[in-house]
């Protein structure tokens, strides 16, 4: 049983990092109706910037982190303004293609700027696992979960309670009516991308620290799809729950099944889950129930 809980708890912590990436994706989809296939690449880019600042330019972490967050927020703004705003009103498939194009541009430019070989982001985290009730908890995962958790809670508060959060939800709900009450919809779009950039920056550091920074880091973005499909494409709590479920499921499944099949369960099961979810609940557990007056 300890083995199960060990896998489960560590899986949940990994899941919180999925949730972080998924949040950016959901936010962009909800506010601007853009399906952003470049979310994973934003994470990778964040990881690259972090690695470059710390390893190449030898900046201390206390300076590197604000620089990283600032530049990722700026990147989000720039992408929205420069690439996606001109696409407003185009059909869905063109916009999807643009984000796929963007993802390749990110990968290529990161490799060009900072090299393709894997870099590590050294964070001052001890390696010795903590043992609580026979469960081994890796400090790296724990820090990742704490950072993700704090960010997600802060964002949830902002989104539910602050006036800007209300304006964001209003815009997601009815753009023209939002304009009519004086909400600057273009600013809301830019803000959504900026917050997605911020989430990607944190995700990039955490994931980069865990698995190393190279263009392969963008693949965490693919795990976001099962997470958001499970939770509901347009649901912020759904992103959290979906991420946690995917993290826990892949960890537990890998622990039990991998010894028999020789690995790979981790990459396969989330997608099986996604396909099943699409058959049973296509709008996810928390997806928008469209309120209809009859």
């Amino acid at each position, binding site marked *: 049983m300890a083995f199960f809980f060990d896998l489960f708890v560590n899986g949940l912590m990994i899941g919180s990092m999925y949730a972080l990436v998924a949040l950016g994706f959901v936010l962009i989809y909800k506010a601007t109706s853009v399906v952003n296939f470049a979310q994973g690449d934003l994470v990778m880019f964040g990881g690259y910037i972090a690695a470059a600042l710390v390893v190449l330019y030898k900046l201390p972490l206390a300076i590197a982190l604000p620089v990283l967050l600032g530049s990722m927020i700026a990147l989000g703004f720039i992408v929205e303004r420069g690439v996606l705003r001109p696409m407003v009103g185009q059909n869905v498939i063109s916009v999807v293609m643009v984000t796929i194009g963007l993802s390749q541009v990110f990968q290529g430019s990161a490799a060009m700027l900072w090299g393709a070989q894997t870099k590590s982001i050294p964070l001052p985290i001890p390696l010795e696992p903590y043992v609580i009730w026979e469960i081994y908890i890796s400090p790296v995962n724990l820090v990742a979960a704490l950072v993700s958790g704090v960010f997600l809670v802060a964002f949830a508060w902002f989104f539910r309670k602050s006036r800007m959060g*209300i304006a964001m*939800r209003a815009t997601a709900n009815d753009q023209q009516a939002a304009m009519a009450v*004086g909400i600057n919809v273009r600013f809301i779009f830019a803000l959504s991308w900026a917050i997605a950039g911020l989430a990607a920056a944190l995700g990039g550091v955490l994931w980069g620290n865990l698995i190393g920074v190279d263009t392969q880091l963008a693949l965490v973005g693919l795990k976001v799809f099962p997470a958001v499909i499970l939770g509901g494409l347009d649901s912020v709590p759904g992103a959290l729950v979906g991420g946690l479920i995917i993290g826990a499921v892949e960890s537990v499944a890998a622990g039990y099944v991998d010894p028999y099949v020789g690995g790979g369960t981790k990459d396969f099961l989330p997608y099986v889950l996604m396909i099943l979810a699409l058959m049973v609940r296509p709008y996810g557990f928390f997806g928008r129930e469209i309120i209809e007056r009859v």
Partner: protein
Amino acid sequence: MLRLNNVEVVYDRVILVLKGMSLEVPEQRIITLLGSNGAGKSTTLKAISGLLKPERGEITTGSVEFAGERIDHRGPEEIVKRGITQVMEGRRVFDDLTTEENLLSGAHTRRGLAEIRTDLAAVYEYFPRLAERRTLKAGYLSGGEQQMLAIGRALMARPRLMLLDEPSLGLAPLLVEEIFQIIQRLNRQEKLTVLLVEQNAAMALTIAEHGYVMENGRIVLDGPVAALRENPDVKEFYLGLTEVGTRKSYRDVKHYKRRKRWLS
């Protein structure tokens, strides 16, 4: 207070919807704009509030002046800040947000939380039913409550001029009356100027002071409501009465006999 001079609006660069529209709304009055479907009433309101752009519309000539300044070609948020708020046709409340969040979203352009709180209380006083539904998602409100919410949300921006697009749409007669009474109260107590677009001409002509009749993208008739109510064309086409003042039977309608005079 508000003046439209010879405004032309074109959709998609080809479809001319407003063809030289002029009208004037003096301060603290209720002015109504009547007209049949597709006459351009909603377009007129959107031209004022800056909401044409998402529908690919554009003011090509003419000017819109508010309080002595031109406001055409300004963004909608700028126009809201200057004191014009539109209540859009079909209510358009944010149905995923609660009643209170809807109202707070209306105050988005304003600063000063304390004042916003006072205004929130004032809106709940005008619409006590909204206070009861404060934490309920707006999508679950009834049609009348949603209309009240849409008006309340617009009030939260502290407008000087409110543009109301068909507030009676799809509501029971009793509710329509209630909503019109509230509009009248707002006009008197809050010194709110109102430009009212209505299909329900009978109702609109009882609360407004001055009316414009619109057809095919331009004003064809205007005057004090008393005069409009007596106008035989308005009676026939908007109030559904014959010249004697009795309700008309559709059996007797012979369209070729009488045409709108201004069309020929």
